[in-house]
Every structure is written in structure tokens, then in C-alpha cells.
């Protein structure tokens, strides 16, 4: 019962996030929403496994967590560097700028 409530809560949270993804206004809001929906999907898939008695399907949740990360990196590179190919430097000469 509580698990079902958890699933319902996650679905509500996802719906709210989707509103943010659709409304925007900036692309960063959308990425943020997409990333957050990704995390919620991971949890939702794991919970669905529990709800329907097949917790072995956590693999799917695991792979989502991973893909979510890579897609976010791609987006970040897209916005900041306008290329997917350049390396991310570890330039040590400057101090940490914005905490």
C-alpha cells in the first residue's frame, strides 16, 4: 500500500516536472527538468518492480541512471562549448570561481 503511494507520489512529481519541461522558459530549465525526470524514472522503474513483484528489473533502473548522466554531459558540452568533441580540460591555473 505504501509502495503504491510512493509510486503515485512519484508520478505526481513527474507530472509537475513535465510542466516545467514544457513551459521552460530557458533551455536550462528544460535540462534541469529532464534530468530530474530521469532520476524520478529510475526510482519509478525500481518501485514498479517492487509493486508488481519483480524486483529483479532493477537493471533497467541502473542503466537509466547511467544514461541520464551521459546525456546531461552531452547537453552541457553542447551549451558551453558548442561541440561534442573537445576535451574537458583540468586546467589548474585558475582558482575556483563560483564556489
Amino acid at each position, binding site marked *: 500500500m505504501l509502495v503504491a503511494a510512493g509510486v503515485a507520489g512519484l508520478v505526481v512529481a513527474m507530472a509537475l516536472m513535465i510542466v516545467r519541461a514544457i513551459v521552460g522558459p530557458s533551455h536550462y530549465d528544460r535540462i534541469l527538468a529532464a534530468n530530474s525526470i530521469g532520476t524520478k524514472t529510475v526510482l519509478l522503474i525500481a518501485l514498479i518492480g517492487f509493486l508488481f*513483484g519483480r524486483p529483479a528489473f532493477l537493471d533497467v533502473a541502473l542503466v537509466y541512471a547511467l544514461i541520464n548522466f551521459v546525456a546531461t554531459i552531452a547537453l552541457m558540452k553542447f551549451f558551453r562549448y558548442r561541440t561534442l568533441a573537445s576535451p574537458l580540460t583540468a586546467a589548474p591555473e585558475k582558482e575556483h570561481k563560483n564556489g
Partner: protein
Amino acid sequence: MSWLASHFNYVIVVALMMAGLFIVFSSGNLIKRMIGLALFQSSTGLFYISLSKVSGATAAITLDAGSVDGKALASQLDPAYVQQFGVDGVVYANPLPHVLILTAIVVGVATLAVGLAIAVRVREAYGTVEADEIEALSRVTAEQAEPAR
């Protein structure tokens, strides 16, 4: 109303197909058209999977009857269903559409990659990815094939 309940999935799938098809035919931007095509293809997946749904079933990965999963699951299912449609005491989902859609998803991503690659080359050759501008420029090419009369 009960028709809507029992065919709800199909209604939504049709709406998604229409959305995808509309993007494909109405948009002039080649990339947007590819996005529409991806949406359209993905909606076929939804259609097949909706067909394959068996109420009260579980994923078609057969359980060891003695395993914890199996016992927990069998206790959740409706005995009448299990008796009529079950295999080894559990109702499983229909695996065939799943297999087909796995293939269709793969075909979809292959098409997406090739289509986008061609769109990129179109941009390199024409300097734009808007269909109407490309058409205008193509007409110029066709007229270059003609001598001045």
C-alpha cells in the same frame, strides 16, 4: 465510456501517431521532420505493446517455480486467470510484440542516424535546412543546367 476505458491506449497511440505525422508533413525544417519521424515510429511501438498487454500478467521472463519471486507473484495473481491462461502457474505477458518492437526501435535509431547525416550534408551543400529555401536553391541548380535562352 467503457469503450473508452477498454480502448484508451489505442486512442492515445493514435493521437501520438497523428502528432508525429503532422510534424513530418507540416514542418519545413529537416531536423524537426526527423524528430517527428522518430515520434511516429515510436508510437507504433506503443501500439504493438498495447496489443500485447495481458491484464494481471508479469514480464515474460519465466520464474523458477520455487524462487521467492515466483511465490510472491503467484500469490498476487487471480487464480481463475492463472488457471485459464497461465504457464506453470503464472500468467506471462505476450513476448512476441516485445521482440518485434525491439527490432523496430533499432530500425528507428538507424533511420534517425542516417537521416540526420543526410540533413547535415544538405546544410553543408545548401547552407540551410529549411525545405522551401532548399527548393528555391535547387531550382537555381536546375536552371544552371539549362542554357540561357
